[in-house]
């Protein structure tokens, strides 16, 4: 299996505060990797370092074959990013959003046109192409945002709480999209507060107080912790947390 | 009552914990005063002078050489007629002209008193006054020398004549202007922003859901800015007296009373803005373009209202600071009393009550 994310003792300090402490893990191509942790455990910091937005204090990390210290621009070309809070421009139409994101990743005009077409068909949103994003239901927005984050065929996509607040059916449809992308070889790095979604991941890491305190498949974690579900696994680990944001 | 007090206390905490706002609140008047007081009325050197000498005698020659030797003046031309003089001004060659009347020496010996005319281009009123003050100094000096020479006191008087802007509007007038500007800025902008901030934060929801009377919310949101404004007013007055040697001629109580009225008016406008603005930015934009610009342009503080086209003149009537500006000027600079400003006070009072009523009525006790 090809390794697409590799970290060794990756650390970020803010003054005396160690936000992320010696993180070491590997993620393989096409894997759905769940990145869990309590609020303030250091998830966001770790994710930002991997996306090339934050310089690590020490340790090694390699994303999509590029070094996080020296090749952040190349990393950015090879990853997609979607967060629940912001991804799409509400005052642009669906098609304009797709074109914009395709444009900033340097796709040619022909490619942009093709991608826009392909996406609208895939999402079954052809009739909504000229609608403002603000008029779409939340679930549609999130599906669109996810597809847009994949518009430049990245190797890895980072999803920050992608399914917050949507109804159970839409949430599952969203995961269908994730599975589909993973099936095509895209590595999915996802954070969530829904513990049933943790079960959908191939492997899950749980951060507590800046440290990865567990990393394995959901099945193995449940066995190790003697827990009925991932919620209980998480609860057992995160309860020990001492610090908060 | 304790509710109100604790609310006001909370507002002050917001103000004092936001260092940037704090700097703006108290730095603003200081910077304005310094800016207008020093940067804009700096000493002026090498002013271009034209001379029209009808006298052609010893005194006029002595004075001309004195003027020419001064670092403040450069004589650039001598003219022979008033027409020539005027054209020198029109072309902008001269900033100032000195006219020595015929028979100056004789007049002085005979009457012990003679007049020299000084004509200044007062379209830039600040420099015109400064220049004429320098000129007066030269004449004074000359008079002093003469007195020691002659047993009888003789005196030359300078008669200044201001072209284009005879009343010299704007010269020390900037202090009333700054007062109006600062009060407007603090009261209108800061208060509207601070109310809209609670809306943005969502705390307004909690406050409205509480049994706390909405009127109290208004009072306690506005009170700190009123207090800060009065404090600012005092700072400006103290600075004007100590730094700019300006004398407060009229009653300070009257000044503070009128200012309070103006502060209330500005607060009411701020409240009104907060009722429509949804974000802090838009509140700020509305206050800046809707209030600050008219205050700068239409109060007579930078541009004399008499010279404005009629539509602007009419528009200036609804700008509260226009009336406030007159009050401050009359009380502070001219030392006039209540009888001279009652009309303006009444207008301001009317505006204030009207705006307060409307804005309190518009204040939403619910969400949209």
């Amino acid at each position, binding site marked *: 299996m090809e390794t697409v994310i590799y970290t060794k003792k990756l650390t970020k300090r803010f003054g005396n505060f160690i936000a992320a402490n010696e993180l070491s893990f590997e993620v393989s191509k096409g894997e759905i990797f769940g990145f869990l942790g309590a609020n303030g455990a250091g998830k966001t910091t770790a994710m930002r370092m991997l996306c090339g937005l934050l310089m690590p204090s020490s340790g090694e990390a390699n994303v999509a074959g590029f070094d996080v210290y020296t090749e952040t621009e190349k990393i950015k070309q090879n990853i997609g990013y979607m967060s629940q809070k912001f991804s799409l421009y509400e005052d642009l139409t669906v098609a304009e959003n797709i074109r914009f994101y395709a444009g900033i990743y340097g796709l040619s005009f022909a490619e942009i046109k093709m991608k826009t077409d392909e996406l609208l068909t895939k999402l079954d949103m052809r009739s909504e192409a000229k609608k403002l994003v603000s008029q779409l239901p939340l679930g549609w927005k999130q599906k669109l945002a996810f597809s847009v984050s994949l518009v430049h065929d990245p190797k890895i996509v980072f999803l920050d*709480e992608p399914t*917050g607040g949507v109804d159970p059916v839409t949430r599952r449809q969203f995961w269908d999209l994730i599975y589909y992308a993973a099936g095509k070889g895209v590595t999915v790095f996802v954070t969530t507060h829904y513990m049933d979604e943790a079960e959908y991941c191939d492997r899950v890491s749980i951060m507590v107080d800046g440290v990865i305190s567990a990393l394995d498949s959901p099945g193995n974690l449940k066995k190790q912790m003697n827990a009925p*579900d991932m919620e209980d696994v998480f609860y057992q680990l995160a309860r020990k947390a001492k610090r908060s944001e | 009552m304790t509710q109100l007090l604790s*609310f006001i206390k909370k507002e002050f*905490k917001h103000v004092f914990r936001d260092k940037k706002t704090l700097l703006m609140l108290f730095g603003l008047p200081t910077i304005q005063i310094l800016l207008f007081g020093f940067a804009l009325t700096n000493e002026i050197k090498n002013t271009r002078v034209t001379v029209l000498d009808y006298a052609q005698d010893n005194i006029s020659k002595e004075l001309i050489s004195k003027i020419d030797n001064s670092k403040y003046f450069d004589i650039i031309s001598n003219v022979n007629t008033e027409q020539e003089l005027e054209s020198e001004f029109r072309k902008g060659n001269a900033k100032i002209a000195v006219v020595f009347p015929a028979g100056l020496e004789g007049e002085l010996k005979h009457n012990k008193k003679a007049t020299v005319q000084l004509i200044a281009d007062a379209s830039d009123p600040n420099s015109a006054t400064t220049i004429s003050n320098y000129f007066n100094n030269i004449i004074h000096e000359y008079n002093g020398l003469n007195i020691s020479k002659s047993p009888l006191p003789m005196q030359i008087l300078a008669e200044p004549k201001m072209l284009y802007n005879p009343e010299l509007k704007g010269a020390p007038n900037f202090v009333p202007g700054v007062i109006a500007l600062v009060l407007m800025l603090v009261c209108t902008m800061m208060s509207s922003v601070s109310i809209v901030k609670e809306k943005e934060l969502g705390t307004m929801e909690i406050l*409205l859901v*509480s049994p*706390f009377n909405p009127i109290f919310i208004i009072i306690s949101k506005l009170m700190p800015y009123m207090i800060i404004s009065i404090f600012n007013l005092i700072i400006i007055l103290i600075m004007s007296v100590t730094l700019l040697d300006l004398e407060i001629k009229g009653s300070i109580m009257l000044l503070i009373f009128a200012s309070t009225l103006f502060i209330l008016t500005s607060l009411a406008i701020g409240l009104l803005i907060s009722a429509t603005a949804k974000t802090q930015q838009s509140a700020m934009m509305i206050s800046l373009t809707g209030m600050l610009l008219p205050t700068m342009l239409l109060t007579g503080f930078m541009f004399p209202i008499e010279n404005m086209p009629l539509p602007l003149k009419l528009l200036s009537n609804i700008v509260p600071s226009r009336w406030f500006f007159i009050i401050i000027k009359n009380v502070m600079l001219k030392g006039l009393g209540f009888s001279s400003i009652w009309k303006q006070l009444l207008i301001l009072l009317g505006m204030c009550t009207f705006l307060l009523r409307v804005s309190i009525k518009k204040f939403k006790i619910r*969400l949209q």
Partner: protein
Amino acid sequence: MMIVTEQLKKVYGKEKIVAVDNVNLSVDKGEIFGLIGPDGAGKSSIFRMLTTLLIPDGGSATVNGFDIVKDYKKIRHCIGYMPGRFSLYQDLTIEENLQFFATVFNTTVSENYHLIKDIYCQIEPFKDRRAGKLSGGMKQKLALCCALIHKPEVLFLDEPTTGVDVVSRKEFWDMLKNLKQMGLTILVSTPYMNEAALCDRIALIQSGKILSVNTPEKLVNNYGETLYTVTGGNMYKLLNLLRSYEGTDSCFAFGNSLHLTLKYQTKKDTVVAYLQEEGFKDAAIQETIPGIEDCFIKLLKTN
């Protein structure tokens, strides 16, 4: 009855978007009543109407016997409200926030300290810290303290646990149980279906309409179909296979297994045989008790 709504309706904007569509609810005194539904379902609009912040466009409602439009002042005396987003002063400390809200409601912290004691003692060590610097869980506790400080009779909690981690969420629900013991009526909304089981009664809501009102147990009992869990092999492939299977009524991923309902003449053994034939040697199928989320999905389908 602590809260009663009759045909409550709210319409927004020029496009006349119906956010709340003829909602009828009644909440008993001393009950924890949950409004369960996704974002945009109309939960916050219902909360804002009941807390007198919005005027309904149709229907009526009472809180503690008071009309939400006419008697809004009386209602404002007897309710506590925690809006969806964190709505405290970030530049004030924990203690200052609490004291401020106490005085706004014309009371003191010490007067009702017994109500908040259990919650407040957890954040008290940080009482001099500014609210903006607190973690999600601590902010939530502080907000709850502030909503409780005037000893309200009804507590309105609009999505108090959204975006908060599992540990803090569990603690929060424990706190709500304690408050219920003290006699408070609590109306709470959440997008997390598993929290529904912790309420006395729940209303499932979608697109402004109430889908169902019941106790969690009865809701589950009324599911009306046999629900199976299916496990074994690659879940995504299994899911796609089952969805295309002719005997399948619905199939959804549920954590580490799939939840399956079958068309009525299909037998579970037939399904197992089919799956094994398709190469899923370890496929296992078992009858299971449905959860709230299963009920919600089913109601979404039938509506």
